[in-house]
């Protein structure tokens, strides 16, 4: 029983099917580890012990009867912006501290249907706005590799939980890097699929044209398995794409020979920590040994991706978050004098500082007289960045580079200046703007801290980027390293 937490999700699912251990045993072990870790990591906002144990018992019964799906009995955590019926969905915000969703997000429903057991809801930057998990109303999450450091964000709780082996996998969302950046900083594997691949129905919206649900796990193979179960067309999401979901697991073992890797010139800029760069260059040599060919490619407009993002994302967020007005759900101020007071105080009290900053930035860039100069201009530059990617993928299969400029940084190091914080997502935002699938996987350490390698592919090439990540993980063992104290 002691090695359950260091097993991969794929191994656990097989073990449950072979009935080497029960789901109740496994889930209880996870719950115990979660509770023991809360004081130091603060990775969870809600732990659903009772319902998890009930579901685990039902999973055991199903397995005993010879039934069950691909994930039956496997414990999993959901980022707390996926709506979960009957369970608080807070989005890391005081605004939704008392909000109990009356419905399940499509992702939650699909994983439930595949047999997964939800053990809790993970901590996150408030409304997914942040790169360090320090904007959460429920306090910051800490990095399991060094608790004085941030885990990254916004899916910091999911990343820390997987890195500390509290759960074998967790759902997450990525608007500008919120899956990949914490995966890199926590030394785990995360995939942000193609925009439209995973339903957004039931994901509390931050920036609708950028948000995409995905998964954090310890290996690419586990990510492939969970993604296969959560992806697919959803009639409730107009931006969901009606393209069949390939079997990402079955495709993993295809050989890499002849893979054309583009080495993105703009990813190796002056902001990249030289030690991080070393790890990434070493990884590129691993790919060469695996039979890939490397070519340098340039996306000249990519350096503008962060400014584009900080127009488009706040604009959409200012509108998406207008529904939080204290009337139908969410925080309502005490004794409002009048309607405007109800709005202004409920929102001022319910939202934290970074969320307000983005709402105001977005309100400004959409307002009369500034729309063309900011919003339309940004959408035009977005088109240029997209065109750069399209051009690059005419000559290469995937683009590989660093996920972040540096390893994890200290709590409080970047909170004073929002722009410094925003620049942490400089390598990840491009994939969101163009809607591309991208993986981050561990590729070594700098001063004892994990470094992330990013693989970006063209639309709907999840199978290909997961293959590339899987091949690397067959050749290396960085993904198997566990933070001290959690092994």
């Amino acid at each position, binding site marked *: 029983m002691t090695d359950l937490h260091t097993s991969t999700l794929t191994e656990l699912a097989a073990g449950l099917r072979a009935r080497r251990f029960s789901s109740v045993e496994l889930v209880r072990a996870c719950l115990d580890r979660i509770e023991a870790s809360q004081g130091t990591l603060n990775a969870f906002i809600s732990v659903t012990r009772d319902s998890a144990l009930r579901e685990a018992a039902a999973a055991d019964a199903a397995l005993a009867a010879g039934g069950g799906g691909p994930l039956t009995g496997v414990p999993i955590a959901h980022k707390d912006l996926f709506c979960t019926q009957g369970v608080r969905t807070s989005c890391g915000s005081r605004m939704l501290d008392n909000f109990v969703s009356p419905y399940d997000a499509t992702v939650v429903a699909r994983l439930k249907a595949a047999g997964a057991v939800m053990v809790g809801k993970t901590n996150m930057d408030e409304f997914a706005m942040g790169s360090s998990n320090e904007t959460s109303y429920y306090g910051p999450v800490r990095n399991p590799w060094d608790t004085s450091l941030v885990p990254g964000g916004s899916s910091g709780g999911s990343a820390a939980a997987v890195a500390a082996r509290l759960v074998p996998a967790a759902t997450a969302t990525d608007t500008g890097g919120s899956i990949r950046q914490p995966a890199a900083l926590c030394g785990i594997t995360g995939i942000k699929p193609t925009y439209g691949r995973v339903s957004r129905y039931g994901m509390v*919206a931050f920036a*609708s044209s950028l948000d995409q649900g995905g998964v954090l796990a310890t290996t690419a193979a586990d990510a492939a398995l969970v993604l296969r179960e959560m992806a697919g067309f959803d009639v409730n999401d107009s931006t969901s794409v009606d393209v069949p979901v390939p079997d990402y697991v079955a495709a993993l073992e295809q050989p890499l020979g002849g893979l054309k890797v583009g080495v993105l010139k703009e990813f190796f800029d002056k902001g990249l920590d030289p030690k991080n760069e070393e790890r990434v260059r070493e990884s590129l040599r691993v790919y060469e040994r695996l039979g890939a060919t490397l070519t340098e490619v340039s996306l000249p407009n990519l350096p503008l991706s962060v400014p584009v993002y900080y127009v488009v994302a706040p604009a959409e967020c200012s*509108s998406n978050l*207008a529904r939080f007005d204290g009337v139908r759900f969410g925080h309502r101020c005490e004794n409002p004098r009048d309607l405007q007071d109800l709005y202004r105080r409920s929102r001022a009290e319910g939202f934290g500082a970074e969320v307000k900053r983005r709402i105001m930035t977005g*309100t400004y860039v959409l*307002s009369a007289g500034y729309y063309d100069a900011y919003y339309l201009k940004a959408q035009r530059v977005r088109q240029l960045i997209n065109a750069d990617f399209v051009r690059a993928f005419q000559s290469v299969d995937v683009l590989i580079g660093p996920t972040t400029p540096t390893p994890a940084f200290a709590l409080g190091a970047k909170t004073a200046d929002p722009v410094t914080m925003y620049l942490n997502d400089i390598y990840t935002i491009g994939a969101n703007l163009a809607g591309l699938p991208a993986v981050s996987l561990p590729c070594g350490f700098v001063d004892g801290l994990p470094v992330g390698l990013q693989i970006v592919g063209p639309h709907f090439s999840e199978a290909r980027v997961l293959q590339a990540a899987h091949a690397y993980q067959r050749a290396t063992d960085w993904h198997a390293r566990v933070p001290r104290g959690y092994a």
Partner: protein
Amino acid sequence: MSGWETVIGLEIHAQLATKSKIFSGSATAYGAPPNAQANLVDLGYPGVLPVLNAEAVRMAVKFGLAMGARIATHSVFARKNYFYPDLPKGYQISQYELPIVAHGSLEILLEDGSAKRIGVTRAHLEEDAGKSLHEGLPGFTGIDLNRAGTPLLEIVSEPDMRSAKEAVAYMKKVHTLVRYLEICDGNMQEGSFRCDANVSVRKAGAEKFGTRAEIKNINSFRFVERAINYEVERQIELIESGGKVVQETRLYDPDKGETRSMRSKEEANDYRYFPDPDLLPVELDAAFIDEVRKSLPELPDQKASRFARDYGLSAYDAGVLTASRELSVYYEDVVRAVPHEAKLSANWVNGELAAALNKENLEITASRVPAERLAGLVARISDQTISGKIAKEVFESMWADGASADQVIESKGLRQITDTSAIEKVIDDVLAKNPGQLADYRSGKDKLFGFFVGQVMKATGGKANPAQLNQLLKKKLGS
């Protein structure tokens, strides 16, 4: 008010008669208990997303085709951002830069009988808001979101109307059209069809428009006329007394018969429109548009000219009979039974029947005299069983008792007397009883002819065939 010209443009909101809402599967039926028809999408719950109703798109295209407008093969939904309690998401999903329908026009008939073309700038799809209830909740306003998300077609005219009467004629025209197309029930009391009027005045001959005021949410033809007339007078008086019209939103108060400023809506009208990222561009191909075109019914203007042509009606009568689809159907049901009396049928439908309906404020579909019975009455006039005058009496009984024309004629013995000898006998009696008048007539008082007609009619209870009576009386008096 001479020396001033009024300029009016209307924004008509027609609720589309879909079963479900524009972006959700909630019912759109009127009158449900509060919030019983507001689902998670209508309530703007966190995480939910809109999916567009095909029927709303089809209905918008239908309207566009019916007024000869351009149908956009590429249109875009945008968010109009503002805070209001009846607007759950804090934005309304509407169409802004690329509406589904643009550049149409409709023709209205002016009082002098001439026609005028009113341009329709655009018609776009959007979602309706909920309702605020101010009664019975001291200190609070209650919000019912059943109406939120009901599909609306907003039909925006050019500022082409020059009087309240023209505005009403245009509004009636649109009303008729949407009901013909069966895309809106047109129920103004329930708010299914309402309008905002943009009103300004300028010195006659001036080129520039004056500053306009927008009168919001007027829900009857009568109120449109009154609100505009009030507003025009207000603006002229204001300018003439040295003041200035300010661009603002005003509300018409039907009880006081005046418009007043709605400052609450003025506070922040920076709507920050941008394309809704939750919805993709609506792309319509030629096949879709053709399919809708094939489903178009005969339109009011087409029907009116057919009526004029085939039934020999005046443009006015044809216009009245086609003003509602139901009325035109009623009329054609009558004519089908008495095909050789199309003109007479029109007179009856537009005359006695219309008056009777009006008196009781009934729709044609609720007429106490159904079409086949009215046809029965027309047939009896046509075959001279009764005179036109008696027919009015018969109609009254039919209306009151629900009987057929023949039943009334039989039971009341109203059959017309066409027997020459019978009429002659009555004439002889009348002449015998009035020797003085007879002598006067013979000495040249021609006017007394009418007196004798009246006496005969009185004696026969009005049943003598008038033409025969005339002819026989002339013969007797001339001999």
